[in-house]
Protein backbone atom coordinates (compact mmCIF):
# COMPACT_ATOMS: atom_id res chain seq x y z
CA UNK A 1 0.00 0.00 0.00
CA UNK A 2 2.69 2.43 0.97
CA UNK A 3 4.85 1.52 -1.97
CA UNK A 4 1.94 1.90 -4.30
CA UNK A 5 1.29 5.42 -3.05
CA UNK A 6 4.89 6.37 -3.25
CA UNK A 7 5.43 5.12 -6.76
CA UNK A 8 2.89 7.61 -7.90
CA UNK A 9 4.29 10.47 -5.91
CA UNK A 10 5.84 12.17 -8.94
CA UNK A 11 2.76 14.31 -9.09
CA UNK A 12 3.42 15.54 -5.58
CA UNK A 13 7.06 16.19 -6.38
CA UNK A 14 5.96 18.40 -9.23
CA UNK A 15 3.48 20.19 -7.05
CA UNK A 16 6.08 20.87 -4.37
CA UNK A 17 8.56 22.07 -6.96
CA UNK A 18 6.10 24.44 -8.60
CA UNK A 19 4.18 25.78 -5.64
CA UNK A 20 4.49 29.52 -5.46
CA UNK A 21 6.77 30.60 -2.62
CA UNK A 22 7.84 34.12 -1.67
CA UNK A 23 11.43 35.15 -2.34
CA UNK A 24 14.10 33.98 0.08
CA UNK A 25 15.66 36.58 2.33
CA UNK A 26 18.34 34.66 4.12
CA UNK A 27 21.46 36.71 4.53
CA UNK A 28 24.76 34.92 4.14
CA UNK A 29 26.84 37.84 5.28
CA UNK A 30 24.93 37.84 8.51
CA UNK A 31 25.25 34.07 8.86
CA UNK A 32 28.98 34.40 8.47
CA UNK A 33 29.20 37.27 10.89
CA UNK A 34 26.91 35.68 13.47
CA UNK A 35 28.48 32.25 13.07
CA UNK A 36 31.83 33.80 13.62
CA UNK A 37 30.73 35.10 16.98
CA UNK A 38 30.09 31.65 18.39
CA UNK A 39 32.71 29.57 16.72
CA UNK A 40 35.31 28.51 19.19
CA UNK A 41 39.01 28.67 18.80
CA UNK A 42 38.98 29.71 15.17
CA UNK A 43 38.12 33.21 15.97
CA UNK A 44 41.04 35.10 14.63
CA UNK A 45 41.08 33.48 11.22
CA UNK A 46 37.34 33.84 10.90
CA UNK A 47 37.27 37.49 11.76
CA UNK A 48 40.02 38.03 9.24
CA UNK A 49 37.77 36.46 6.63
CA UNK A 50 34.95 38.78 7.59
CA UNK A 51 37.35 41.65 7.24
CA UNK A 52 38.11 40.57 3.71
CA UNK A 53 34.42 41.05 2.98
CA UNK A 54 34.43 44.34 4.75
CA UNK A 55 37.40 45.68 2.88
CA UNK A 56 35.93 44.54 -0.41
CA UNK A 57 32.92 46.69 0.34
CA UNK A 58 34.82 49.74 1.40
CA UNK A 59 35.21 51.32 -2.02
CA UNK A 60 31.54 50.98 -2.79
CA UNK A 61 30.80 52.27 0.66
CA UNK A 62 32.73 55.45 0.12
CA UNK A 63 30.98 56.23 -3.12
CA UNK A 64 27.53 55.11 -2.20
CA UNK A 65 26.16 58.31 -0.76
CA UNK A 66 27.33 60.36 -3.68
CA UNK A 67 26.12 57.94 -6.26
CA UNK A 68 22.83 56.60 -5.05
CA UNK A 69 21.74 59.35 -2.77
CA UNK A 70 21.21 61.80 -5.57
CA UNK A 71 22.88 65.10 -4.87
CA UNK A 72 19.76 67.16 -4.52
CA UNK A 73 18.17 64.79 -2.06
CA UNK A 74 21.05 65.15 0.32
CA UNK A 75 20.52 68.88 0.63
CA UNK A 76 18.10 70.76 2.79
CA UNK A 77 14.69 70.56 1.15
CA UNK A 78 13.90 73.83 -0.57
CA UNK A 79 10.68 75.77 -0.83
CA UNK A 80 9.24 75.43 2.64
CA UNK A 81 7.71 78.62 3.93
CA UNK A 82 8.62 78.76 7.56
CA UNK A 83 6.56 81.27 9.47
CA UNK A 84 6.58 81.16 13.22
CA UNK A 85 7.21 77.58 14.23
CA UNK A 86 8.40 75.08 11.66
CA UNK A 87 6.52 71.82 11.36
CA UNK A 88 8.53 68.86 12.61
CA UNK A 89 10.74 67.28 9.96
CA UNK A 90 10.09 70.08 7.48
CA UNK A 91 13.78 70.87 7.14
CA UNK A 92 15.91 67.82 7.77
CA UNK A 93 19.41 67.23 6.53
CA UNK A 94 21.14 63.88 6.35
CA UNK A 95 24.75 62.85 6.40
CA UNK A 96 26.77 59.71 6.84
CA UNK A 97 28.02 59.10 10.36
CA UNK A 98 31.79 59.43 10.01
CA UNK A 99 33.98 56.51 11.08
CA UNK A 100 36.95 57.37 13.27
CA UNK A 101 39.68 58.52 10.87
CA UNK A 102 41.76 55.73 9.38
CA UNK A 103 40.35 53.09 11.65
CA UNK A 104 38.33 50.68 9.49
CA UNK A 105 34.73 50.19 8.46
CA UNK A 106 31.52 50.61 10.42
CA UNK A 107 29.38 47.60 11.10
CA UNK A 108 26.13 46.58 12.71
CA UNK A 109 23.15 48.56 13.75
CA UNK A 110 23.32 52.08 15.09
CA UNK A 111 21.64 52.74 18.43
CA UNK A 112 20.91 56.12 19.98
CA UNK A 113 19.75 57.67 23.22
CA UNK A 114 16.37 59.39 23.67
CA UNK A 115 17.89 62.84 23.17
CA UNK A 116 19.64 61.85 19.97
CA UNK A 117 22.91 63.30 21.18
CA UNK A 118 24.68 59.94 21.48
CA UNK A 119 24.86 57.14 18.97
CA UNK A 120 26.84 53.91 19.00
CA UNK A 121 27.80 51.17 16.55
CA UNK A 122 30.72 48.87 15.82
CA UNK A 123 33.94 49.36 13.97
CA UNK A 124 35.75 46.51 12.23
CA UNK A 125 39.41 47.49 12.13
CA UNK A 126 41.89 46.47 9.45
CA UNK A 127 43.36 43.79 11.71
CA UNK A 128 39.95 42.14 12.00
CA UNK A 129 39.21 43.19 15.55
CA UNK A 130 35.98 44.93 16.47
CA UNK A 131 35.62 47.95 18.73
CA UNK A 132 32.56 49.87 19.88
CA UNK A 133 32.26 53.48 18.65
CA UNK A 134 30.37 56.24 20.42
CA UNK A 135 29.37 59.41 18.58
CA UNK A 136 28.61 62.56 20.52
CA UNK A 137 26.78 65.01 18.27
CA UNK A 138 28.23 63.15 15.31
CA UNK A 139 31.84 63.09 16.56
CA UNK A 140 33.19 59.53 16.81
CA UNK A 141 35.21 58.09 19.65
CA UNK A 142 36.53 54.53 19.76
CA UNK A 143 35.70 52.81 23.05
CA UNK A 144 37.83 50.24 24.87
CA UNK A 145 37.55 46.69 23.60
CA UNK A 146 35.36 44.30 25.54
CA UNK A 147 35.58 40.69 24.46
CA UNK A 148 35.36 39.87 20.78
CA UNK A 149 33.02 41.24 18.14
CA UNK A 150 31.54 43.95 20.38
CA UNK A 151 28.13 45.24 19.32
CA UNK A 152 26.62 48.21 21.19
CA UNK A 153 22.93 47.56 21.87
CA UNK A 154 21.80 50.69 23.67
CA UNK A 155 23.00 54.03 24.99
CA UNK A 156 21.38 56.38 27.49
CA UNK A 157 21.37 60.17 27.58
CA UNK A 158 24.45 60.22 29.79
CA UNK A 159 26.44 58.36 27.18
CA UNK A 160 26.42 55.04 29.06
CA UNK A 161 26.66 52.29 26.44
CA UNK A 162 25.71 48.64 26.86
CA UNK A 163 26.51 45.92 24.40
CA UNK A 164 27.21 42.30 23.68
CA UNK A 165 30.45 40.55 22.79
CA UNK A 166 31.71 37.03 23.00
CA UNK A 167 34.36 35.62 25.26
CA UNK A 168 37.58 34.01 24.12
CA UNK A 169 35.77 30.68 24.20
CA UNK A 170 32.83 31.89 22.17
CA UNK A 171 30.49 32.37 25.09
CA UNK A 172 28.28 35.40 25.67
CA UNK A 173 29.68 38.53 27.27
CA UNK A 174 27.55 41.52 28.21
CA UNK A 175 29.22 44.81 29.05
CA UNK A 176 28.61 48.38 30.04
CA UNK A 177 30.73 51.40 29.18
CA UNK A 178 30.52 54.18 31.75
CA UNK A 179 32.83 56.98 32.87
CA UNK A 180 35.51 56.05 30.39
CA UNK A 181 35.65 52.42 31.46
CA UNK A 182 34.15 49.23 30.13
CA UNK A 183 32.97 46.64 32.63
CA UNK A 184 31.68 43.13 32.06
CA UNK A 185 28.20 42.40 33.38
CA UNK A 186 27.53 39.32 35.46
CA UNK A 187 26.92 36.02 33.72
CA UNK A 188 23.39 34.66 33.64
CA UNK A 189 23.63 31.28 35.32
CA UNK A 190 21.74 28.47 33.66
CA UNK A 191 21.33 30.16 30.30
CA UNK A 192 23.18 29.67 27.02
CA UNK A 193 23.17 33.21 25.81
CA UNK A 194 22.21 36.65 26.97
CA UNK A 195 22.25 40.11 25.57
CA UNK A 196 21.63 43.54 27.14
CA UNK A 197 19.02 45.48 25.20
CA UNK A 198 18.51 48.72 27.05
CA UNK A 199 19.98 50.98 29.68
CA UNK A 200 17.82 53.48 31.52
CA UNK A 201 18.77 56.94 32.71
CA UNK A 202 19.91 55.58 36.06
CA UNK A 203 22.12 53.01 34.40
CA UNK A 204 20.08 49.87 35.10
CA UNK A 205 20.48 47.41 32.28
CA UNK A 206 17.69 45.20 30.93
CA UNK A 207 18.16 42.41 28.46
CA UNK A 208 17.20 38.94 27.57
CA UNK A 209 18.64 35.47 28.12
CA UNK A 210 17.68 32.18 26.59
CA UNK A 211 18.39 28.52 26.63
CA UNK A 212 16.88 26.53 23.79
CA UNK A 213 13.32 27.75 23.51
CA UNK A 214 13.25 29.24 27.00
CA UNK A 215 13.51 32.99 27.18
CA UNK A 216 13.68 35.27 30.15
CA UNK A 217 14.07 38.94 30.89
CA UNK A 218 17.32 39.84 32.67
CA UNK A 219 17.99 42.93 34.79
CA UNK A 220 21.39 44.09 35.90
CA UNK A 221 21.14 46.86 38.51
CA UNK A 222 23.44 49.79 37.82
CA UNK A 223 25.05 49.69 41.23
CA UNK A 224 26.10 46.08 41.09
CA UNK A 225 26.65 45.00 37.51
CA UNK A 226 28.65 42.02 38.70
CA UNK A 227 26.00 40.67 41.07
CA UNK A 228 23.74 37.92 39.78
CA UNK A 229 21.14 39.53 37.54
CA UNK A 230 17.44 39.29 38.30
CA UNK A 231 15.41 37.00 36.07
CA UNK A 232 11.74 37.17 35.20
CA UNK A 233 9.62 34.29 34.01
CA UNK A 234 8.36 35.13 30.59
CA UNK A 235 7.39 31.79 29.09
CA UNK A 236 6.92 31.42 25.36
CA UNK A 237 7.69 35.01 24.50
CA UNK A 238 10.41 36.33 22.25
CA UNK A 239 11.69 39.83 22.69
CA UNK A 240 12.74 42.21 19.99
CA UNK A 241 12.93 45.53 21.78
CA UNK A 242 13.25 46.82 25.32
CA UNK A 243 12.36 50.21 26.70
CA UNK A 244 14.47 51.92 29.32
CA UNK A 245 11.94 51.05 32.02
CA UNK A 246 12.33 47.33 31.52
CA UNK A 247 9.36 46.98 29.18
CA UNK A 248 10.00 44.33 26.56
CA UNK A 249 8.08 44.01 23.30
CA UNK A 250 8.06 41.08 20.97
CA UNK A 251 5.87 38.15 20.16
CA UNK A 252 4.28 35.33 22.05
CA UNK A 253 3.39 31.79 21.14
CA UNK A 254 3.38 29.70 18.01
CA UNK A 255 1.24 32.19 16.14
CA UNK A 256 3.68 34.99 17.02
CA UNK A 257 1.12 37.44 18.32
CA UNK A 258 2.47 40.82 19.38
CA UNK A 259 3.04 40.99 23.10
CA UNK A 260 4.47 43.26 25.77
CA UNK A 261 5.80 42.25 29.15
CA UNK A 262 7.76 43.70 32.01
CA UNK A 263 10.78 42.76 34.02
CA UNK A 264 8.48 41.66 36.85
CA UNK A 265 7.18 38.93 34.55
CA UNK A 266 3.75 40.38 33.88
CA UNK A 267 2.58 41.04 30.35
CA UNK A 268 -0.31 41.57 27.99
CA UNK A 269 -1.24 40.84 24.41
CA UNK A 270 -1.17 43.72 21.98
CA UNK A 271 -4.12 44.31 19.70
CA UNK A 272 -4.17 43.29 16.06
CA UNK A 273 -6.25 45.30 13.61
CA UNK A 274 -9.29 43.62 12.02
CA UNK A 275 -8.12 41.15 9.41
CA UNK A 276 -4.60 40.87 10.74
CA UNK A 277 -3.30 37.41 11.50
CA UNK A 278 0.11 38.25 12.86
CA UNK A 279 2.30 41.11 13.95
CA UNK A 280 5.40 42.03 15.84
CA UNK A 281 6.46 44.94 17.96
CA UNK A 282 10.08 45.68 17.18
CA UNK A 283 10.90 48.64 19.32
CA UNK A 284 9.53 50.44 22.36
CA UNK A 285 9.86 53.84 23.98
CA UNK A 286 7.77 55.01 26.91
CA UNK A 287 4.12 54.25 26.25
CA UNK A 288 4.62 53.39 22.62
CA UNK A 289 5.76 50.38 20.63
CA UNK A 290 6.25 50.13 16.89
CA UNK A 291 6.52 47.31 14.41
CA UNK A 292 4.33 45.68 11.81
CA UNK A 293 1.18 43.63 11.31
CA UNK A 294 0.31 41.12 8.57
CA UNK A 295 -3.15 41.11 7.05
CA UNK A 296 -4.93 39.26 4.32
CA UNK A 297 -6.54 41.31 1.65
CA UNK A 298 -8.11 40.70 -1.68
CA UNK A 299 -7.34 44.22 -2.73
CA UNK A 300 -3.98 44.92 -4.27
CA UNK A 301 -1.97 47.33 -2.11
CA UNK A 302 -1.73 50.87 -3.38
CA UNK A 303 1.27 51.74 -5.49
CA UNK A 304 4.00 51.88 -2.86
CA UNK A 305 6.16 54.06 -5.08
CA UNK A 306 3.83 57.00 -4.72
CA UNK A 307 1.97 56.87 -1.43
CA UNK A 308 4.89 56.93 0.99
CA UNK A 309 6.33 60.12 -0.43
CA UNK A 310 3.14 62.04 0.04
CA UNK A 311 3.68 64.74 2.60
CA UNK A 312 1.13 65.51 5.23
CA UNK A 313 -1.40 63.05 3.91
CA UNK A 314 -4.05 62.04 6.40
CA UNK A 315 -4.08 58.34 6.91
CA UNK A 316 -7.25 56.45 7.61
CA UNK A 317 -5.96 54.04 10.19
CA UNK A 318 -8.95 51.81 10.03
CA UNK A 319 -8.47 51.47 6.32
CA UNK A 320 -10.91 51.44 3.48
CA UNK A 321 -8.44 49.62 1.32
CA UNK A 322 -8.58 46.34 3.12
CA UNK A 323 -12.21 45.83 3.95
CA UNK A 324 -12.12 42.52 2.15
CA UNK A 325 -9.54 41.02 4.42
CA UNK A 326 -10.56 37.99 6.36
CA UNK A 327 -8.94 36.72 9.51
CA UNK A 328 -7.82 33.19 8.86
CA UNK A 329 -4.74 31.60 10.35
CA UNK A 330 -4.36 29.03 7.62
CA UNK A 331 -4.62 31.45 4.75
CA UNK A 332 -7.83 29.98 3.39
CA UNK A 333 -9.12 33.33 2.35
CA UNK A 334 -11.94 33.29 -0.09
CA UNK A 335 -10.76 33.84 -3.61
CA UNK A 336 -7.10 33.66 -2.63
CA UNK A 337 -6.08 36.41 -0.24
CA UNK A 338 -2.76 38.14 -0.20
CA UNK A 339 -0.79 38.65 2.93
CA UNK A 340 0.40 42.21 3.14
CA UNK A 341 2.42 43.72 5.92
CA UNK A 342 1.77 47.18 7.27
CA UNK A 343 3.64 49.48 9.61
CA UNK A 344 1.99 49.58 13.02
CA UNK A 345 2.18 51.36 16.36
CA UNK A 346 0.76 50.31 19.70
CA UNK A 347 -0.27 52.44 22.65
CA UNK A 348 0.98 50.35 25.54
CA UNK A 349 -1.39 52.02 28.00
CA UNK A 350 -4.37 50.55 26.18
CA UNK A 351 -2.87 47.94 23.86
CA UNK A 352 -4.61 49.72 20.99
CA UNK A 353 -3.06 49.43 17.55
CA UNK A 354 -2.81 51.91 14.72
CA UNK A 355 -1.60 50.65 11.39
CA UNK A 356 -0.83 52.16 8.02
CA UNK A 357 -1.93 49.76 5.28
CA UNK A 358 -0.06 51.62 2.58
CA UNK A 359 3.30 51.26 4.34
CA UNK A 360 4.50 47.72 3.75
CA UNK A 361 7.75 48.14 5.66
CA UNK A 362 7.63 48.01 9.47
CA UNK A 363 7.79 51.02 11.72
CA UNK A 364 11.34 50.72 13.02
CA UNK A 365 11.68 53.55 15.51
CA UNK A 366 9.31 55.25 17.92
CA UNK A 367 9.75 58.07 20.41
CA UNK A 368 8.13 59.01 23.70
CA UNK A 369 5.42 61.11 22.05
CA UNK A 370 4.38 58.38 19.65
CA UNK A 371 6.00 59.58 16.45
CA UNK A 372 7.33 56.69 14.42
CA UNK A 373 9.88 56.36 11.64
CA UNK A 374 9.66 53.76 8.91
CA UNK A 375 11.68 52.81 5.86
CA UNK A 376 9.81 52.34 2.62
CA UNK A 377 10.13 51.73 -1.05
CA UNK A 378 9.81 55.42 -1.77
CA UNK A 379 12.26 56.35 0.99
CA UNK A 380 12.15 56.65 4.76
CA UNK A 381 9.37 58.63 6.43
CA UNK A 382 8.17 59.76 9.79
CA UNK A 383 4.53 59.44 10.82
CA UNK A 384 2.97 61.77 13.35
CA UNK A 385 0.69 60.56 16.15
CA UNK A 386 -2.23 61.74 14.01
CA UNK A 387 -1.02 59.77 11.01
CA UNK A 388 0.54 62.52 8.93
CA UNK A 389 3.37 61.19 6.83
CA UNK A 390 6.48 63.24 6.11
CA UNK A 391 9.29 62.08 3.84
CA UNK A 392 12.84 62.21 5.10
CA UNK A 393 15.60 63.37 2.78
CA UNK A 394 18.50 61.20 1.76
CA UNK A 395 18.90 57.84 0.10
CA UNK A 396 15.71 55.91 -0.61
CA UNK A 397 17.13 52.84 1.13
CA UNK A 398 17.66 54.72 4.39
CA UNK A 399 16.46 52.56 7.27
CA UNK A 400 15.85 54.60 10.41
CA UNK A 401 16.46 52.79 13.69
CA UNK A 402 16.29 55.62 16.23
CA UNK A 403 14.15 58.74 16.58
CA UNK A 404 14.83 61.25 19.34
CA UNK A 405 12.08 62.35 21.70
CA UNK A 406 12.33 65.96 20.50
CA UNK A 407 11.91 64.96 16.83
CA UNK A 408 15.17 66.68 16.01
CA UNK A 409 17.39 63.75 15.21
CA UNK A 410 17.25 60.29 13.67
CA UNK A 411 19.83 57.62 13.13
CA UNK A 412 19.76 54.69 10.77
CA UNK A 413 21.57 52.78 8.13
CA UNK A 414 21.32 52.07 4.45
CA UNK A 415 19.70 48.76 3.64
CA UNK A 416 19.16 47.66 0.06
CA UNK A 417 15.53 46.66 -0.29
CA UNK A 418 15.80 44.96 -3.64
CA UNK A 419 13.18 47.13 -5.21
CA UNK A 420 15.22 48.65 -7.96
CA UNK A 421 14.23 47.33 -11.35
CA UNK A 422 16.48 44.52 -12.48
CA UNK A 423 17.90 43.78 -9.07
CA UNK A 424 16.76 40.29 -8.21
CA UNK A 425 17.18 38.34 -5.04
CA UNK A 426 20.37 36.73 -6.33
CA UNK A 427 22.01 40.03 -7.16
CA UNK A 428 20.93 41.40 -3.82
CA UNK A 429 22.38 38.44 -2.01
CA UNK A 430 25.63 38.76 -3.87
CA UNK A 431 25.71 42.43 -3.03
CA UNK A 432 25.26 41.65 0.63
CA UNK A 433 27.94 39.03 0.57
CA UNK A 434 30.30 41.47 -1.08
CA UNK A 435 29.49 44.22 1.36
CA UNK A 436 29.85 41.89 4.28
CA UNK A 437 29.50 43.52 7.64
CA UNK A 438 30.25 47.01 6.34
CA UNK A 439 27.33 49.30 7.01
CA UNK A 440 26.70 52.86 6.00
CA UNK A 441 25.24 54.70 8.97
CA UNK A 442 23.13 57.83 8.64
CA UNK A 443 22.25 60.75 10.86
CA UNK A 444 19.33 63.06 10.14
CA UNK A 445 19.15 66.49 11.81
CA UNK A 446 15.76 68.10 11.76
Amino acid at each position, binding site marked *: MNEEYEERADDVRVLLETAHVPPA*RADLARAVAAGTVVRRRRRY*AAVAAATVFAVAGTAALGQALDRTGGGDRMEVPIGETVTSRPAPFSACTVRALPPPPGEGVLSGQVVSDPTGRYAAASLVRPDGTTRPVLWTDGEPEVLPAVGYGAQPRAVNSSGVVVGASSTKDGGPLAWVYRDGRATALAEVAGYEWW*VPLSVNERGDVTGEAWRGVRFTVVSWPHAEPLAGPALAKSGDVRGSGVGGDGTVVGTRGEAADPYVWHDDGTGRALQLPPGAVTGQAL*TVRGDWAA*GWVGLYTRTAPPDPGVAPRTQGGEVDTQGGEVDERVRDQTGRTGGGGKLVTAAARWDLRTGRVTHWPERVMPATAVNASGWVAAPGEGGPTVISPRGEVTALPGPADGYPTALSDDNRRLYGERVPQG*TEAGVGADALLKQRITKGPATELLMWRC
Partner: protein
Amino acid sequence: MRADDTSEYVEFVSARLARWHRAAYLLCGDEHRADDLVQTTVTRLYVHWARARGADNLDGYVHRMLVRAYIDERRLAWSKVWLMSSTPERGASGDSGVEERDLVVRALAELPKGQRTVLVMRFLCDMPVESVAAAMRCSTGNVKAQTARGLATLRARLGEQAPFAGAGTGKGGGLRE
Protein backbone atom coordinates in the same frame (compact mmCIF):
# COMPACT_ATOMS: atom_id res chain seq x y z
CA MET B 1 38.02 29.55 9.25
CA ARG B 2 40.26 30.33 6.32
CA ALA B 3 39.07 32.74 3.68
CA ASP B 4 39.04 29.84 1.20
CA ASP B 5 36.66 27.91 3.38
CA THR B 6 34.38 30.89 3.68
CA SER B 7 34.32 31.30 -0.08
CA GLU B 8 33.54 27.63 -0.46
CA TYR B 9 30.75 27.95 2.06
CA VAL B 10 29.29 30.98 0.34
CA GLU B 11 29.43 29.25 -3.02
CA PHE B 12 27.78 26.11 -1.71
CA VAL B 13 25.06 27.90 0.16
CA SER B 14 24.29 30.47 -2.55
CA ALA B 15 23.53 27.72 -5.01
CA ARG B 16 21.05 26.07 -2.65
CA LEU B 17 19.42 28.88 -0.71
CA ALA B 18 16.35 29.07 -2.91
CA ARG B 19 15.78 25.35 -2.59
CA TRP B 20 16.13 25.36 1.19
CA HIS B 21 13.84 28.32 1.41
CA ARG B 22 11.23 26.52 -0.67
CA ALA B 23 11.42 23.55 1.68
CA ALA B 24 11.24 25.78 4.74
CA TYR B 25 8.28 27.71 3.40
CA LEU B 26 6.36 24.58 2.47
CA LEU B 27 7.08 23.20 5.93
CA CYS B 28 5.91 26.16 7.95
CA GLY B 29 3.73 28.09 5.50
CA ASP B 30 4.96 31.42 6.76
CA GLU B 31 7.31 33.72 4.94
CA HIS B 32 9.05 35.12 7.99
CA ARG B 33 9.40 31.85 9.82
CA ALA B 34 10.80 30.30 6.66
CA ASP B 35 13.42 33.02 6.53
CA ASP B 36 14.21 32.36 10.18
CA LEU B 37 14.56 28.63 9.63
CA VAL B 38 16.89 29.11 6.69
CA GLN B 39 18.90 31.76 8.50
CA THR B 40 19.24 29.48 11.50
CA THR B 41 20.31 26.61 9.28
CA VAL B 42 22.90 28.53 7.29
CA THR B 43 24.32 30.07 10.45
CA ARG B 44 24.60 26.69 12.09
CA LEU B 45 26.13 25.31 8.91
CA TYR B 46 28.75 28.03 8.94
CA VAL B 47 29.63 27.27 12.52
CA HIS B 48 30.07 23.59 11.67
CA TRP B 49 31.37 24.08 8.16
CA ALA B 50 34.74 22.48 8.74
CA ARG B 51 33.03 19.30 9.83
CA ALA B 52 30.06 19.50 7.49
CA ARG B 53 32.04 19.90 4.30
CA GLY B 54 33.54 16.48 4.85
CA ALA B 55 30.12 14.83 5.13
CA ASP B 56 29.35 12.05 2.68
CA ASN B 57 26.09 13.65 1.74
CA LEU B 58 26.28 17.34 2.48
CA ASP B 59 22.86 18.10 1.01
CA GLY B 60 21.32 15.48 3.22
CA TYR B 61 23.21 16.88 6.18
CA VAL B 62 21.75 20.34 5.60
CA HIS B 63 18.25 19.01 5.01
CA ARG B 64 18.47 17.24 8.32
CA MET B 65 19.54 20.46 10.01
CA LEU B 66 16.65 22.26 8.39
CA VAL B 67 14.01 19.80 9.46
CA ARG B 68 15.43 19.66 12.97
CA ALA B 69 15.31 23.43 13.15
CA TYR B 70 11.69 23.27 12.06
CA ILE B 71 10.72 20.52 14.47
CA ASP B 72 12.50 22.06 17.41
CA GLU B 73 11.60 25.63 16.51
CA ARG B 74 14.67 26.67 18.36
CA ARG B 75 15.82 30.17 18.15
CA LEU B 76 19.56 30.02 18.05
CA ALA B 77 21.56 32.33 20.15
CA TRP B 78 23.92 33.42 17.47
CA SER B 79 21.25 34.31 14.96
CA LYS B 80 19.50 36.33 17.58
CA VAL B 81 22.54 38.38 18.36
CA TRP B 82 22.12 40.03 15.02
CA LEU B 83 18.46 39.57 14.46
CA MET B 84 17.39 41.33 17.59
CA SER B 85 15.44 44.53 17.37
CA SER B 86 14.52 46.16 14.13
CA THR B 87 16.62 44.36 11.61
CA PRO B 88 15.48 44.89 8.07
CA GLU B 89 14.83 41.29 7.20
CA ARG B 90 12.40 40.67 9.97
CA GLY B 91 8.90 41.85 9.44
CA ALA B 92 9.79 43.70 6.33
CA SER B 93 7.75 42.37 3.53
CA GLY B 94 10.45 43.22 1.08
CA ASP B 95 10.00 43.57 -2.63
CA SER B 96 6.29 43.41 -3.02
CA GLY B 97 4.85 42.83 0.40
CA VAL B 98 2.53 40.41 -1.28
CA GLU B 99 2.37 36.71 -0.81
CA GLU B 100 0.08 34.74 -3.03
CA ARG B 101 -0.67 31.46 -1.38
CA ASP B 102 -1.46 28.89 -3.97
CA LEU B 103 -3.54 25.80 -3.59
CA VAL B 104 -0.64 23.49 -2.84
CA VAL B 105 0.66 25.69 -0.04
CA ARG B 106 -2.77 25.90 1.48
CA ALA B 107 -3.37 22.17 1.17
CA LEU B 108 -0.01 21.48 2.80
CA ALA B 109 -0.79 23.89 5.61
CA GLU B 110 -3.90 21.90 6.42
CA LEU B 111 -1.97 18.67 6.86
CA PRO B 112 -0.77 17.61 10.31
CA LYS B 113 2.78 18.74 10.96
CA GLY B 114 4.23 15.23 10.72
CA GLN B 115 2.63 14.45 7.39
CA ARG B 116 3.64 17.78 5.95
CA THR B 117 7.20 17.25 7.11
CA VAL B 118 7.58 13.81 5.58
CA LEU B 119 6.12 14.91 2.26
CA VAL B 120 8.43 17.90 1.94
CA MET B 121 11.49 16.01 3.12
CA ARG B 122 10.88 12.98 0.97
CA PHE B 123 9.56 14.50 -2.24
CA LEU B 124 11.10 17.94 -2.33
CA CYS B 125 14.39 17.23 -0.58
CA ASP B 126 14.64 13.65 -1.84
CA MET B 127 15.59 12.31 1.55
CA PRO B 128 15.33 8.55 1.95
CA VAL B 129 12.90 7.13 4.49
CA GLU B 130 15.72 6.28 6.88
CA SER B 131 17.10 9.81 6.90
CA VAL B 132 13.68 11.34 7.44
CA ALA B 133 13.10 8.95 10.31
CA ALA B 134 16.43 9.90 11.86
CA ALA B 135 15.76 13.61 11.47
CA MET B 136 12.27 13.29 12.94
CA ARG B 137 13.46 10.89 15.62
CA CYS B 138 10.83 8.29 14.78
CA SER B 139 10.68 4.87 13.13
CA THR B 140 10.82 4.22 9.40
CA GLY B 141 7.42 2.59 9.67
CA ASN B 142 6.07 5.80 11.11
CA VAL B 143 7.55 7.80 8.23
CA LYS B 144 6.04 5.43 5.67
CA ALA B 145 2.65 5.56 7.31
CA GLN B 146 2.69 9.34 7.50
CA THR B 147 3.79 9.51 3.89
CA ALA B 148 0.87 7.38 2.79
CA ARG B 149 -1.61 9.36 4.82
CA GLY B 150 -0.15 12.67 3.75
CA LEU B 151 -0.22 11.78 0.08
CA ALA B 152 -3.78 10.56 0.31
CA THR B 153 -4.97 13.64 2.15
CA LEU B 154 -3.10 16.03 -0.11
CA ARG B 155 -4.49 14.43 -3.23
CA ALA B 156 -7.98 14.38 -1.83
CA ARG B 157 -7.78 18.09 -0.88
CA LEU B 158 -6.42 19.14 -4.21
CA GLY B 159 -8.78 16.91 -6.06
CA GLU B 160 -11.71 18.66 -4.42
CA GLN B 161 -10.66 22.01 -5.69
CA ALA B 162 -9.39 21.32 -9.17
CA PRO B 163 -9.05 18.43 -11.52
CA PHE B 164 -5.80 16.62 -10.93
CA ALA B 165 -5.00 16.92 -14.57
CA GLY B 166 -1.27 17.04 -14.31
CA ALA B 167 -0.83 14.09 -11.99
CA GLY B 168 2.23 12.10 -12.84
CA THR B 169 2.80 13.88 -16.12
CA GLY B 170 5.49 16.23 -14.98
CA LYS B 171 3.23 19.23 -15.06
CA GLY B 172 1.19 20.91 -12.45
CA GLY B 173 -1.85 20.65 -14.63
CA GLY B 174 -4.66 22.97 -13.78
CA LEU B 175 -3.79 23.21 -10.15
CA ARG B 176 -2.08 26.55 -10.08
CA GLU B 177 -4.06 29.73 -10.25
